[in-house]
């Protein structure tokens, strides 16, 4: 059973890493807005610089 000497700290470390990640996300304000982020992934506003082909396609459609 000596293997427990290694396994238990490893288990605790992994759990602790999860805890630290959660506390970090909480501190950095990721829980302040539970609605917005799911929509932000659909926002293409950051692609504007090289969106010429898209714009061209849009013109064709309209």
């Amino acid at each position, binding site marked *: 059973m000596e293997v*427990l000497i290694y396994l238990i700290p490893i288990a605790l470390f992994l759990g602790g890493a999860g805890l630290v990640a959660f506390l970090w996300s909480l501190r950095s304000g990721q829980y302040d*807005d539970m609605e*917005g982020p799911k*929509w932000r992934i659909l926002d293409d*506003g950051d692609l504007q610089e090289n969106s010429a082909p898209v714009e061209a396609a849009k013109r064709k459609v309209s």
Partner: protein
Amino acid sequence: MSAPERDWAAFVTNTDDGKAHMDLAVDGITCAACMYEIERGLQKLDGVEKARVNLSSHRLSVDWDGEKTNPSPIVDLLQRLGYKAYPFDPAQVKSRGDAVGKEILRALAISGFAAMNIMLLSISIWSGNASDIDPETRSFFHWISALIALPTVVYSGRIFFRSAYMAVKTGRLNMDVPITIGVLLATGLSMWQTVQEAEHAYFDSAVMLLFFLLVGRYCDHLMRRKTRSFAENLATLKAESAAKIQEDGSALDVPLSKLSVGDRVLVRAGERISVDGKISTGISEVDQSLVTGETLLQPVGEGDLVYAGTMNTYGVLEIEVTAAAKGTLLDEVNRLLETAMEGRSKYVHIADRASQLYAPVVHAAALLTLVGWIMLGMAWQPALVIAISVLIITCPCALGLAIPAVQVVASGLFFNERVLLNAGDAIERLATVDTIVFDKTGTLTLPETSLSEKHDLSADQLELAGRLALSSSHPLSQAIARATGAQQALPDAKESAGKGVEAIIDGVPAKLGSPAFCGVSDEQLDQAKVLQPDASFVAFQLGDKAAQLLSVGQFMREGATDTIQKLKTAGFTIEILSGDHKGAVEHAARVLGVETWQAAMKPQDKIDHIEELKAQGKKVLMVGDGLNDAPSLAAANVSISPVSAVHVSQAAADAVFLGDSLAPVMSALTISKKARWVMNQNLAISVVYNMIAVPFAVLGFVTPLVAALAMSGSSIIVTLNAVRLRMLAGSSTQPNSEA
């Protein structure tokens, strides 16, 4: 008439890295597209560093370089995009983040981590105990559990320990007292067992208990945060600021918190007065309906007192801010409000009432167990272990979740029905109501004046009247302009302050104004007043033809008659108590079919009447909006305000309803009745659970495994039962039917 410049410095704070920062409440954000539009628009402004919309709270946070730009273009841009925005007064929004929520969430995360890891070790011990674990390994596992549990109990338990300490210090008993005793005893006993290298330790129970209770606590907090942030937005969007007159005579728009007694404030025609004070120059008529319930306009002049919430009609007033002076209405309201609030604080929440019954019983049972086993000849140490296990298994885990879980589900349903709760316990108090007292002005009727459809004007004439009305800032004219949807003012319209507007159209003179201004005879006016006692009259005259009357007034809310009928059918006693004059109240009562009504009530009269009803054993719901209603809102068993109510009344009410319809009052009562039913079920489940568990514990059969199963089992059952409320209520209410 340009708006006075705004004093931005009062709204802007500086961030740590030297940027200017402002938080704004934004009205009109309905979907994600609004979010992109606002953020992208603002990012393009020169000097704006960061703009982020919070889609859940409908708030915008902007950081900019103070040297490159100022807030004016930011607010102007939002205006152009079609959003009404107003910055938060930093003095009123205490902390930017949700500090309490984050503390609970951190405690929850840590107890969750600890509960999982200790359970991992505990399961090994339980299965080992059943097979062949050697005492060294078990002791090792217990020590690791202790190492995880002790800091967790200290950190995550603080929230409960603090509240229990406060309760005991003031000589009360709340739910947190038995929780604290249970958790501390479970941890202490386990520690002792660990040192003794005994077979059982209850670290998992102690930590899991904290985890479940923190879930309940967080739910409770979420519910409050949602309504509070919504209420804060509404208050901010009302833009409660005042045009303060500077030393050089110019006017500067400042938030109310920056005004002090003695400052002078400018109120232009058609503006709402936002301070209490004495008129130093100017004459006008004020609409006091929001303050006293009186619908007739009141002439005021130099030296007269005016109250925040009243509407200035035609004159420009300069008002000196005064504190509530003795003998004024405001002073009386404040005094009555204080007394009424004291009375309300005597109410004890169901959960605390339950724990007041519960704690002594459970603690006595534990003591009897200890004494009983010792008398039966057991050594004191194992007897103490059994007694403590009684306390552990009865620790009010299910009881701690029973009420908050229902409150969270119910407040979600309230939200769908456009009712915001100020107090979580309002649900339990609403459920017992049997008598409903309504205020008339602004509650049964709409807070804004509107144009009645009973008139003889043709569509063309009405349009003309609307265009004439645009040239006047008088509230009655504005109501006509709104109703006709007029866009273009007539170019040569002249306004005679306090009388009316006239213009010449194609050579024909047209007049819109007071009946006397248009030459309406007193007889004709009196006849009209008999037909519509609750209206004010505006006359319209084209050329030499006889003038025609338009009635403008605060008419019934949408669905008022319907809601009152439904409430009567549901068995509630309905009364109207109004500060308005007799004719108007009588008319409203007749239209709505309410038999019991009283007019010209002062705040004290309203309270006396409510106290009388309470003395008869009735449970009174007060629905009101005016400053004169505030004390009675606090005096009633429970109270609701429309969102248009004055600030003081909204703060005194237990719930606020949105929109122009009166229907939310009915839904609130229906939902709370069902919620109360589920709360009672949950309390019953907790009691049954204890009745089964306690005999086992007293006999000494409760191992840590049994404690863990019983505790999580009861918590889950109670939570699931609360969720069932959604189905119960969903069958009879129609969420979003008017949204």
